[in-house]
């Protein structure tokens, strides 16, 4: 109770309240504009938050992170275009509802489900915080190293069908973070005697390039889309009543969201996929899924909104971000000398609780805002894509240049912008690079610290948590290779089934020749032997 009161005290400031309001409304707006997304917005705003108090800066960023998915449901339901990537599953059932004249019902249901998911995960984590506070101190250097390694492995294997390139990009991230002056032996690493590389490649510069500038290039080189909006009729509160009719789907989906959010590298997509599959398999009307099923919409929206709060757990408790957005937030902590990790849970529990409470207030604010302002808000969907590109390019400048007023930073960001553009064109993942950079840095420091006390390789995993993490890594790698072998087998079977004789002209002629020769030989044999 005392901790809760201290948490409320931290939040009871006018600047935190303004940050909550700006973050929530701004996040909804950003989410509602297809082509922007929370990653771009957070990357741009990151340097601006460095001058704020940690709680104020983090509240703005958390606000954008937590509320963008509410906003992302609007274009997903109304124009079949997800506002943020994680709203893709919302289009499956949201848009069919719009086409049959129920856009208001779909929106209301999506808001209610998102609200439930958000509040559920905050409550879970507030209740779970004392347990975390007990577990977190069990993580020493080697456990954090293994957890970071697990995070990278999970990110790589989560990209099914692309795990090799995801792994190569994560390795690229690890390499980039190693560029510059090595802090222990003071030796240069891949600086090529260039002064601007001595301080290393800044994470925010890379983030801005890969997320913001690349997105600006995508929009500027693309075309504007013609959008027709449907008029909204009906009440906005019907979603709450409808959600109450499916408590099992909502609770299970939110639980999946919380669980998946806590695992580094897994995130919204897996949570949504599992929840959606569960809802479909246990539904009385599974055929409705994909054709405007309310249960499908609830599963997708509840799961994705339960993730942001849960994703803060590995970040706050271990200092290990599980995905790109929390990786960006980590830099806000570092700038203010607040080191997330076991110490934070032990010494600054009130700060952690304040962040969770901020997330709870944020969900309430966003829900109320959306119930009242959806009619006006949907107009942001009409902003032309190419103009958005101009806006993002203009805003990206602030993000990069305000860091160190360095032209070379801007050049590096532009190079990464082009690289990100190419990756997006090839549908390759960008997130492994960011996580490789962040987790690579953590792994370097923690491995060095832990190896000082390790005599034999077994010493590294002789503690229970380290052993569990090590076995988990082995299990995940084993599962991954087993899955690869299974897929290889399937490919071979499929190729064998579709194998046919050559249809090339030479092949046909050769077969014809053989046939004629066989017929002639038969005729000769008949003539001579009989």
């Amino acid at each position, binding site marked *: 109770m005392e901790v809760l009161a201290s948490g409320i005290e931290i939040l009871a400031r006018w600047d935190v309240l303004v940050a909550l309001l700006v973050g929530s409304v701004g996040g909804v707006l950003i989410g509602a504009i297809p082509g922007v997304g929370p990653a771009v917005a957070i990357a741009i705003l990151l*340097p601006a938050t460095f*001058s704020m108090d940690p709680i104020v800066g983090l509240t703005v960023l958390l606000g954008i992170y937590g509320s963008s998915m509410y906003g992302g449901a609007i274009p997903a339901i109304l124009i079949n275009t997800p506002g943020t990537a994680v709203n893709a599953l919302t289009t499956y059932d949201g848009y069919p509802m719009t086409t049959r004249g129920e856009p208001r019902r779909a929106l209301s249901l999506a808001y209610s489900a998102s609200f439930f998911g958000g509040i559920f995960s905050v409550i879970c984590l507030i209740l779970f915080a004392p347990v975390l506070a007990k577990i977190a101190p069990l993580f020493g250097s080697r456990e954090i190293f293994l957890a970071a390694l697990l995070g990278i492995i999970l990110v790589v294997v989560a990209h099914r*069908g*692309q795990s*090799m*390139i995801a792994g*190569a990009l994560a*390795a*690229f*991230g*690890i*390499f*980039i*973070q*190693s*560029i510059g002056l*090595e802090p*222990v*032996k003071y*030796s*240069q*690493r*891949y600086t090529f005697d260039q002064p601007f590389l001595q301080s290393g490649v800044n994470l925010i510069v890379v983030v801005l390039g890969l997320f913001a500038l690349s997105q600006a*290039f995508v929009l*500027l*080189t693309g075309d504007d889309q013609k959008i027709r909006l449907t008029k909204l009729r009906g009440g906005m509160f019907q979603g709450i009543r409808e959600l109450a009719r499916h408590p099992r789907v909502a609770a299970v989906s939110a639980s999946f969201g919380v669980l998946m959010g806590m695992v580094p590298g897994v995130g919204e997509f897996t949570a949504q996929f599992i929840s959606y599959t569960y809802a479909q398999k246990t539904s009385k009307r599974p055929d409705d899924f994909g054709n405007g099923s309310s249960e499908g919409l609830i599963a997708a929206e509840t799961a994705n909104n339960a993730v942001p709060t849960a994703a803060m757990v590995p970040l706050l408790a271990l200092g290990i971000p599980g995905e790109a957005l929390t990786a960006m937030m980590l830099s806000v902590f570092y700038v203010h000398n607040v080191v997330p990790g076991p110490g934070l849970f032990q010494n600054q529990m009130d700060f952690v609780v304040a962040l969770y409470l901020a997330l709870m207030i944020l969900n309430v604010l966003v829900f109320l805002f959306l119930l009242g302002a959806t009619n006006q808000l949907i107009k942001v969907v009409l902003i032309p894509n*190419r*103009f958005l*590109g*101009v*806006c993002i*390019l*203009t805003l990206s*400048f*602030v993000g990069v*240049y*305000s860091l160190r*007023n360095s*032209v070379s930073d*801007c*050049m590096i960001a*532009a190079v990464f*912008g*082009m690289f990100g*553009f*190419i990756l997006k*064109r*090839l*549908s*390759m993942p960008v997130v492994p690079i960011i996580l*490789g950079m962040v987790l*690579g840095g953590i*792994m370097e420091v923690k491995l*060095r610290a832990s*190896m000082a006390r390790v005599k034999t390789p077994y010493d590294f995993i002789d503690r229970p948590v380290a052993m569990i993490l090590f076995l988990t890594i082995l299990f995940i790698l084993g599962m991954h290779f087993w899955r690869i072998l299974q*897929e290889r087998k399937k*490919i071979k079977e*499929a*190729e064998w089934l*579709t194998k046919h004789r050559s249809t090339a002209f030479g092949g046909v002629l050769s077969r014809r020749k053989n046939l004629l020769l066989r017929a002639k030989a038969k005729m000769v044999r008949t003539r001579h032997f009989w």
Partner: protein
Amino acid sequence: MASEKERRFVGPRRGQIYFSVVFFLVGLLLLSQITRQTRWVENTQLFAQPRFWPAAGLIGIVLLGGLYLYKLPWRNITVQDRIEIRIWVSTLEYVCWFLGYVVVVPVIGYLPATLIFAPLLSWRIGYRSKKMLWISAMFGFATVLLFKTMLSVQIPGGLLYEYFPTMLRSIFIQYF
């Protein structure tokens, strides 16, 4: 007819071969420079060597990037690949716009540079109506107002401001 491997491939075919080859070769080139660009310190554990992490990253790039290239279902270069390269190169124009903006800001100042940049780029990409040009100028002004005036982000005043009258100069340097 597409083979099973081609059907199961995640992502488009166009440009894959170029990307994979360049990514692998750059990784290989950087790895070949490891003895020159990093140091091996005597009497230090392997994991604490300054060379260890760049090597781990580069070996990962070469190994996994090489495997990705080897496993690509296609070996030949098509017209689509060449068109894709042209699209990649076309972004250079916007890179130049961005870097031009970066160079101009310290000279003429953040506000004037943004008020010129946003409408000019809008005009370039095809928004020629007065309404859109005004909107982009207003957007530029709002950006400066939000970040420099209100949030006080660190963007230095332009050289041009030096020629302003004393009162106006200090206001412009601090807020615009």
